[in-house]
């Protein structure tokens, strides 16, 4: 495998493993939190599938449940949270039914996670080298020299110069962008099949964000890894993801190939999100806005959760929760979806 220096979109041809059986299939996932003030249905019937080598963007606003989906896959839900229902099939095995010991075998080796804040996801008391070595000790049979060589190789591949010296450095000796490179290096060390990246560039500046996104794209392509990119930033998703899943109040409201969804959104919420981003090419005096705010998830309105903010809502929306309608590679959960003819 060779690293391609130029920044290119990953075209589907380059990933032979992209077709065939899904690597991960989430089916009807419900993760609820039982708090004193009521049950928070943070994830309420979410389904999607991911094939090897694919990048899926998981998009939505705060409170949409996107991070909880990531945590559920890795079995990182603590009480009062609980996976109430649904299956998380990873290579055919249901992760939701595994014990903590069995999950530990999968975390890091098969599924790795990159968190938003590179400062809190590294241990400030251990050197970078030790934190990388720990991963390899747990998940590979390499001897000490082999592990060291692999760590150096990995640090170099994420663009950290003088890698051998940097192994003995502590996280505080790195800048934010460099720390996120280290976190990505640790995630990729054991050559996982799936990486869950939760807002990996949100804490970074745009020029550093561009570097990190390019790096992640290259790592994913070179290793044939699949990725779930959890983010609120549609622009980042549109540059990275093959397909996107839009969440609102714990439910999937829309799903499909990225370009297709962004060009022709079916759900009014997706349309609203896209229109809320100021578009430099078509500057207008006023931005299209979604009125109101995300409702309290403990007291969701009857019917569609989005109906109070929706410009197309009718009586039916207040009565019945819309089902996810699948049409080819697109899916939407709306009684009155937008069609090609609806003007912006």
């Amino acid at each position, binding site marked *: 495998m060779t690293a391609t220096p130029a920044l290119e979109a990953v075209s589907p041809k380059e990933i032979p493993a992209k077709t065939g059986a899904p690597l991960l299939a989430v089916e009807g996932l419900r993760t609820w939190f039982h708090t004193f003030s009521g049950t928070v249905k943070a994830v309420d019937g979410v389904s999607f599938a991911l094939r090897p080598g694919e990048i899926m963007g998981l998009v939505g606003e705060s409170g949409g449940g996107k991070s909880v989906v990531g945590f559920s896959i890795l079995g990182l839900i603590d009480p009062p949270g609980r996976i109430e229902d649904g299956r998380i099939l990873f290579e055919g095995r249901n992760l939701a039914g595994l014990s903590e010991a069995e999950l530990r075998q999968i975390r890091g080796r098969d599924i790795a996670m990159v968190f938003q804040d590179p400062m809190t996801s590294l241990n400030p008391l251990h050197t970078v080298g030790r934190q990388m070595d720990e991963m390899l000790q747990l998940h590979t049979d390499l001897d000490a020299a082999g592990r060291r060589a692999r760590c150096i190789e990995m640090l170099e591949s994420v663009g950290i110069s003088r890698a051998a010296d940097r192994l003995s450095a502590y996280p505080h000796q790195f800048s934010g962008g460099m720390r996120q490179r280290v976190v990505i290096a640790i995630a990729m060390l054991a050559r996982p099949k799936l990486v869950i990246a939760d807002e990996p560039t949100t804490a970074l500046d745009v020029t550093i964000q561009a570097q990190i*996104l390019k790096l992640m794209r290259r790592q994913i392509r070179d290793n044939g890894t699949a990725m779930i990119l959890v983010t609120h930033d549609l622009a980042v998703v549109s540059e990275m993801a093959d397909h996107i899943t839009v969440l609102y109040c714990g439910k999937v409201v829309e799903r499909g190939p990225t*370009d297709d969804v962004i060009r022709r959104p079916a759900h009014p919420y997706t349309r609203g999100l896209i229109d809320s981003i*100021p578009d*430099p090419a078509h*500057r207008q005096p*006023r931005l*299209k806005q*979604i009125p109101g705010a*995300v409702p309290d998830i403990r007291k969701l309105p009857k019917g569609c959760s989005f109906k109070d903010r929706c410009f197309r809502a009718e009586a039916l929306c207040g009565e019945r929760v819309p089902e996810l309608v699948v049409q080819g590679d697109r899916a939407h959960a709306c009684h009155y979806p937008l069609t090609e003819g609806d003007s912006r």
Partner: protein
Amino acid sequence: MTAMLEVENLTQEFRLGGSLLERMRFDKGRLSFPDKRVKAVNGVSFRIARGEVMALVGESGCGKSTVAKTIARIYRPTGGKIRIEGEDIAGYGVRELLPVRSRMQMIFQDPYASLNPRQRVRDIVAEPLLEQTTGTAARREVAERTLALLAKVGLNTEHAGRYPHQFSGGQRQRIGIARALSVNPGLIIADEPVSALDVSIQAQILNLMMDLRDEFGLAYLFISHDLSVVHHIADRVGVMYLGFLVETGPREHIFSAPRHPYTRALLSAAPSIEKTRSRPEIELKGEVPSALDLPSGCCFRTRCPLAFERCRLERPTLKPVGGGAEVACHLTDEPDRDRA
């Protein structure tokens, strides 16, 4: 006509803290206590006309928020002039600043930290106005005005008696805006006012800010790292890097014909839902140098793909390049070196 705000050669340095022991150095047998200084803002000049929106953009650590806070006189500037409608307030003390505060107010980034959690909304909004008025008749007026202001920013009368924690992030930012408007200022300094908000709420707040500008003829100094937001709201844009203003000009100049390599890099790094890129990309290597130890010559040369000998030796100054734009880059003198 005098400008609403005119900043001239503004500099701001911060002494790094630390005890005498931490600062103690031995040099050739002599004991000294050198002073470490962060040069946060290095000679920034610009002006904002009445009713104009000027945005300062740049990455973290570029000094844009420090400029905002120094103009709002949360900090006392190390050097330079800050003229509000012609009156230089750079050296003013607390007492002298009080009347100035009715002409200039600030909106903060974090709507959770910038509202006192133990005050009711009506008291939060009324406070700046009460500072400026005395007497019971005036107090009644203040109460009326408070309710009117809440309505202006899209909140209602029953919200006045509530506490900040009962509101969402977007609503809190509305409260912050109502508080800033209470004294009827001509200039509002907004430091990343929408970056803590979700994108759908962001659009609501930006629309509100633009409506208020049209209604009250407000001028904004708008600090943001988000180029698409800046493109939407600003009439003029200043790009900052490491405490220097490297390029400034009308919105269309900055977004359609940027000259400084840093501006171009910033624009090409910004992700976009539009796939088309009209400009060639400039990709930056490495990271921003420390403001404790500025590079010689041009501040950007350590990351600039087009840097040459002169950039190391000589610090470029802002020069007009036509169309009301100014650029601080030696490439403007030597256009054939500009390959990208």
